[in-house]
């Protein structure tokens, strides 16, 4: 399926890198490196140069912590989105929020995609996406409350649950008037899941791809990688790239990441192995 986020269209065989840009002082990986607006703006320029087609701007870290109300979240992201829109008209701007009120504000200043990382916790979000013609990332959290860690969450079949919930959310978005070409499903590794479950989601990602909806994976430096390899944050790049390769082979379309160049190479290599992408230069033995 071809992808369309706002005015930005991508072919049905395109794989996209979505670079994380946090407007937070306390996210788990960058620990506030782009909390200052100018630093965040510099990162946007950097990741675009590195080949990211999408930037995903977030104002609230996923983990529990200080309460960030709507007003503060708006302060963190709305003006910044407007600044990025003005400076980089060709990049797709995604905003990571579960709140319809914030989504409305960022769409009004040029955001192209709403990344609802908490799986429809605010039922009004789809209406905002439909009203502005923005894309929507439909994630699976198993019904947990936003900004909570999973605690003894179990599933009879975690993949079946992820498929049922994300496709139901996607269908709801279509009924609300969203363009199907802008709707993406995301199994949401680590969200409402333990490590065993996130590994199973990775192993069986092809089942989500088989739904026909484009699949986004957000794997970058997450705990399921850290627990699998017994490595702390900061030492999880190899594990992230291994999981990225598995998901790329299974047919994922969008990769939400911290490290753009490494991801781009792994996705391209995996896509070529899968026969979905031609080599950049095939000369050896052919001259």
């Amino acid at each position: 399926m071809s992808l369309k986020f706002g005015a930005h269209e991508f072919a049905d065989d395109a794989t996209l890198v979505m670079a994380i840009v946090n407007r937070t002082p306390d996210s788990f990986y960058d620990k506030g490196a782009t909390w200052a607006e100018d630093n965040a703006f510099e990162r946007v320029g950097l990741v675009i140069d590195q080949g990211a087609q999408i930037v995903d701007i977030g104002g609230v870290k996923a983990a529990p912590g200080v309460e960030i109300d709507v007003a503060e979240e708006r302060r963190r992201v709305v003006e910044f989105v407007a600044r990025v829109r003005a400076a980089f008209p060709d990049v797709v701007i995604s905003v990571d929020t579960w709140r319809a009120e914030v989504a409305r504000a960022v769409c009004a200043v040029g955001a192209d995609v709403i990344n609802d990382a908490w799986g429809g916790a605010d039922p009004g979000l789809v209406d905002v996406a439909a009203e502005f013609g923005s894309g929507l990332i439909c994630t699976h959290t198993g019904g947990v409350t936003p900004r909570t860690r999973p605690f003894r969450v179990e599933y009879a079949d975690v993949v079946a649950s992820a498929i049922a919930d994300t496709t139901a959310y996607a269908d709801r978005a279509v009924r609300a008037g969203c363009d199907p070409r802008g709707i993406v499903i995301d199994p949401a590794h680590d969200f409402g899941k333990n490590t065993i479950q996130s590994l199973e989601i990775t192993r069986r990602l092809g089942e989500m791809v088989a739904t026909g909806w484009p699949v986004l994976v957000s794997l970058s430096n997450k705990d399921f990688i850290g627990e699998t390899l017994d490595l702390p944050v900061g030492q999880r790049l190899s594990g992230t790239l291994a999981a990225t390769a598995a998901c790329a082979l299974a047919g994922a379309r969008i990769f939400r990441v911290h490290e753009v160049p490494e991801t781009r190479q792994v996705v391209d290599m995996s896509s070529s192995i899968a026969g979905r992408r031609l080599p950049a230069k095939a000369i050896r033995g052919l001259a």
Partner: protein
Amino acid sequence: MRDAAIVPSTLMLLPEYSSLHDPIDELRQACRDVVAWLVRRHPHGVSLATSPTSSLNVAHGITQAPGQRIGRALVIDAGGRLSAAGPSDGLLVVASGSATQSLAAPGSLDERSHNFDDRLVGALRNGDSIALENLDETLASALWCQDVAAFRALGRHLRSPLRVRATYAGAPFGVQYWAGTWTEGPIEVDGAS
């Protein structure tokens, strides 16, 4: 003779959630010891006291409470059996305290958890059935303690006077775990007691 043992309700005790390197090796051994003690004293079967499956997990198609699966696995592993003929005098309680003891805990830090767990451990160490039966369910829920029903079942089971033995107490992941035994009779002198 009435006896009871307690192990935590952590899913890490289930084989399907095993790790290459056991993150709870000391706790697991303590659980094996107290269950082995209980099984020896009740070879005809032990009963389980667990809490019901959470509504979230019921919605995910989970039909059997995790405590039941944990208890069954430990009892069978110890060579015992679950009581088929009604409640046994040997009760295995599968329950944990709060899950909010640190910033990294599943429920993050709630300062009330320490007082909650201190009072709970006091009730366990004293075999205080009244305190166990009167646990504050609202506070427990706020502190991510999901096992009020199991603690209350323990309270109903215990009768004074008791000999109490705690073999493990700790919160390595910000979740309060205990392993221990209660008995009306004399304590065995062996590795488990």
